[in-house]
């Protein structure tokens, strides 16, 4: 790895081992690992990856995980006849969990989600019901009386996007994916690639030390296509790199140079590693599917990670278009179908790669939407149903609690906007725990997790 990357790992390692000393070394080393936290990761020889599949715009939960038992379906249809799915179209994607839900409740996935439905049946995917942003456990009465702290700016896209990803509204400087990266960077060769984003910048992957690395679906971009001369001059080509990365006392100029330096320093290592894992070796992904393109790059990066000595990695992929205030029936089935197809292809690819147990994917979104329609679409909501997927997932199960279907029930705050029963913090803590984050580090990753009883931190889905 380059000197730049080595320095990053070394600095992170020293920062963490300083805390190792404070934790005390009287007890045998192995038994103190969980209390110490990342020392386990720093010396881990296995590989684990978390993949956040972000559905940008606020996915419509009611037409994704659809009430199927007759009573619930009737309530669903009553609330949104003009944007509702026909019950007989749901038969093929009816979910049959290991243990039935209370009260005979049933759900089917949208008809276009055959991929995720089959993974559910195979025990490789699970559904987490009614999950959303909260600061602390919140009842409907508390919400209505405003007697507990609530996430600020509920129903606002950019703030809820930030809150879901970072436990803080727009302007957040780090997200829980990045904060996990902070803990594990020191154990990674090429630690610059600890947090990888295939769709631009997202606060989710920003750590306090870990800086996300952006890579496109075609791999890292080669400066001047690796040409050694610029306009006939090798001096000009060298000067180009020097200028692009020149430090400055001006903050904006300096930051731009830092990004360029990261790009140029990482290029050779990453493109070489990816060259050994060309796209042609990952044929299961459907075409015309931007999420699939991104997940193919994630699969290639995971392959590359084995040669680069990366042990813990957090990925962010994203697909937009979910803010369906209108045209829901025309657009949602195709869009959520693409999510299902891409995720299924990704799972199958990890099986072929032999890393299915080591990669856990999970969906995320700004918020859910209203159950009731605005005639041909739905509006901003709150709680939503999400998917977790991977070889380590305890699948074919529902987690959380099935909300009552309707308007102004005990489980919604009007128009079928669900009041979350499971918080993003608990969802994240479950994933973090699998990833190797110890109890002692959980509050660093999730500042609000202390507001929940520690027995509820791990939902058990992975």
């Amino acid at each position, binding site marked *: 790895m380059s000197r730049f990357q080595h320095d990053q790992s070394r600095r992170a390692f020293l920062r963490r081992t300083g805390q190792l000393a404070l934790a005390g070394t009287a007890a045998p080393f192995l038994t103190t690992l969980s209390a110490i936290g990342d020392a386990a990761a720093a010396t881990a020889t296995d590989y684990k990856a978390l993949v956040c599949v972000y559905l940008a715009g606020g996915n419509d939960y009611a037409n994704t995980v659809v009430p199927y038992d007759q009573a619930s379906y009737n309530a669903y249809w009553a609330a949104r006849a003009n944007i509702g799915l026909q019950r007989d179209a749901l038969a093929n994607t009816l979910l049959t969990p290991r243990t039935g839900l209370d009260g005979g409740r049933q759900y089917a996935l949208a008809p276009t989600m055959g991929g995720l439905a089959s993974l559910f049946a195979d025990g490789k995917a699970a559904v987490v019901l009614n999950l959303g942003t909260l600061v602390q456990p919140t009842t409907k009465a508390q919400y209505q009386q405003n007697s507990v702290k609530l996430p600020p700016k509920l129903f606002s896209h950019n703030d809820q996007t930030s809150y879901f990803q970072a436990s803080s509204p727009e302007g957040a400087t780090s997200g829980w994916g990045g904060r996990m990266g902070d803990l594990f960077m020191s154990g990674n060769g090429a630690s610059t690639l600890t947090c990888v984003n295939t769709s631009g910048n997202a606060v989710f992957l920003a750590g306090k030390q870990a800086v996300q690395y952006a890579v496109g679906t075609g791999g890292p971009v080669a400066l001047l296509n690796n040409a050694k001369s610029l306009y006939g001059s090798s001096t000009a080509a060298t000067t180009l790199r020097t200028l692009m990365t020149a430090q400055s006392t001006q903050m904006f100029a300096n930051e731009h140079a830092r990004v360029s330096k990261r790009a140029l320093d990482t290029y050779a290592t990453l493109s070489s590693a990816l060259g050994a894992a060309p796209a042609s070796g990952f044929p299961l992904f459907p075409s015309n599917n931007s999420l699939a393109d991104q997940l193919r790059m994630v699969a290639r990066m995971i392959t590359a990670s084995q040669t680069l000595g990366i042990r813990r990695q957090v990925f962010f992929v994203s697909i937009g278009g979910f803010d369906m*205030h*209108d045209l829901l029936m025309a657009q949602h089935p195709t869009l959520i179908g693409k999510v299902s197809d891409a995720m299924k292809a990704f799972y199958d690819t990890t099986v072929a790669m032999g890393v299915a147990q080591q990669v856990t994917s999970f969906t995320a979104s700004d918020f859910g939407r209203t159950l009731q329609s*605005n005639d041909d679409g739905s509006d901003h909501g709150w709680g939503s149903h999400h998917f977790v997927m991977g070889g380590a997932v305890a699948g074919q199960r529902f987690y959380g609690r099935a909300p009552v279907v309707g308007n102004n029930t005990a489980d919604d705050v009007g128009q079928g906007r669900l009041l979350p029963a499971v918080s993003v913090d608990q969802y994240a803590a479950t994933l973090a725990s699998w990833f190797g984050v110890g109890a002692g580090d959980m509050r660093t990753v999730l500042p609000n997790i202390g507001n929940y009883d520690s027995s509820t931190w791990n939902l058990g889905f992975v």
Partner: protein
Amino acid sequence: MLDSDGLRVADDRGTLAVDAVATPSAVKAGGAALPAFLLAACGGGGGDGATSGTSSSTTPVTVAPVALSAAQSSRFLGQATMGATRGSIDALVSRGFEGWLTDQFAMPRATSHWDWLVKNGFNVTANMNIETGFDPTMWRQLIAEPDQLRQRVGMALLDMLVVGIGGVNLSWAQFAMAAYVDVLLDNAFGSFRTLIGAITTNAAMASFLTFLNNRKANANTGAQPDENYARELMQLFTLGLYQLNMDGSVKTSGGVPLETYGQADVTGLARVFTGLQLASNDNTTPDRMRQPLVMNAGLNETGTSTFLGTTVSGGGMAAINAALDAIVAHPNVPPFVSKQLIQRLVTSNPSPAYIQRVATVFADNGSGVRGDMKAVIRAILLDSEARGDAALSSASAGKLREPVMRLTGWARAYGVTSPSNAWAIGDTSSPSSRLGQSMGRSPSVFNFFRPGYAPPDTAIAGAGLVAPEFQITNEQSVVAYVNYMSTLVANGTGDMKPDYTALAAKASDSAALVDEVNLVLAAGQLGSDAITAIRAAVDSVASTATNAATLRTQIAILLTLASPEYLTVK
């Protein structure tokens, strides 16, 4: 103290504390054609409206006019146009800021986007469901139209009052978008309230923010009106989330920020934006895409709607206008809109005093008029924080240059045109092969970058500053940009070729060449290290080599375009 051009400027004691500078700022409308900071002796030019509170005397003192430097001229044009040219720099030096603004404010549009599309035959059935024509008319006007201040402000408004063609679900989308951009350009020098009214009855906006054919509530189905426009109009276009003081600071109570609106306000306001539909059913031509929307009484809510402490009832355009009146009258609008306009044109982190000076003009232009865009634009561009030299040596003043403006700046500086009228630059949104930004192609109403974005793990964020344009800056985009510009600089694109004749005449003298490129593209803001390095690279191609003048010129240009000091606009 004197700056490097021998002009008198006020001392600057700090980087962020610009409001400590004892310089009155805004040049009063109709005042002398002098850079604002030269009026330090005049004791204030802003009258009772735009004042930083630091001026003492209000008695004008006659000051002999001092010529604008070329660097100052280029810097102004870099803020007020889509890019400086040698010709426009010289012309501004002669005319002065006030004269230039007067000329630009008076300049009628040479052609509208709509008319250009029609004149060039884009209104044929084959184009009904594809976007062909949109990018060409956008690039053409941004690069070549003479009403450059209007183009620059129009672009700023499009970054703020966002519509992206990908989210316009209408036939003739290129025409619908053209009509929308025309609304912004036609109203750029008018009244903010009129502008907001015009976008509210625009077909592309109604489709993008999903209020076209928005229905009133239906008790039988439980359907409620679509809330999208009500929310985004308040959150993004006019008020923002939190109550603001005139200096842009957030009002708090007990340390908690005070919100401007809640969910109930959104739901209440949504009732008003019901019933708007396209002006006709005729889809055989694009015409209805530029006609203001009309009211369908059957879809429109005529009952009472309550929001922001106001009630409107009776429905129709009257209710919409009453609602917009109430919103635009809200005390948040001057600071909220002014700060964003400053961020678009001048600097990402204006001082509270700068915001206050501009917001005060927005609230009242000096003649009792609220939302006078000309007055606001003048206040922004002539403010000492925009014109003074303090920003040039500050660690934190300025902004990252928007990628689109890097392209238009190069194109304008070197006479790039399209003889065939194709203007085939195309969609430049790709972050892996283009600019990561393209006008009118934002993927959502949140634009390519947010006004409040702070890049994580940076000194910028650590200092509590924002840098919106960094939201589209990452390891892909920084390399893709250089690659793309390296091909444009050498070959142009399609029939759009640069003309380096004037530069090539200086090419054998690397100092003169680099100085000229630095002046026109970077307003002279490249540092000495960069200049030295670029000169050495230029000189690595011997003047006797084949094609030397062209190669040396290209090297000077591309290395400038890739320099962090160029990429930072001060």
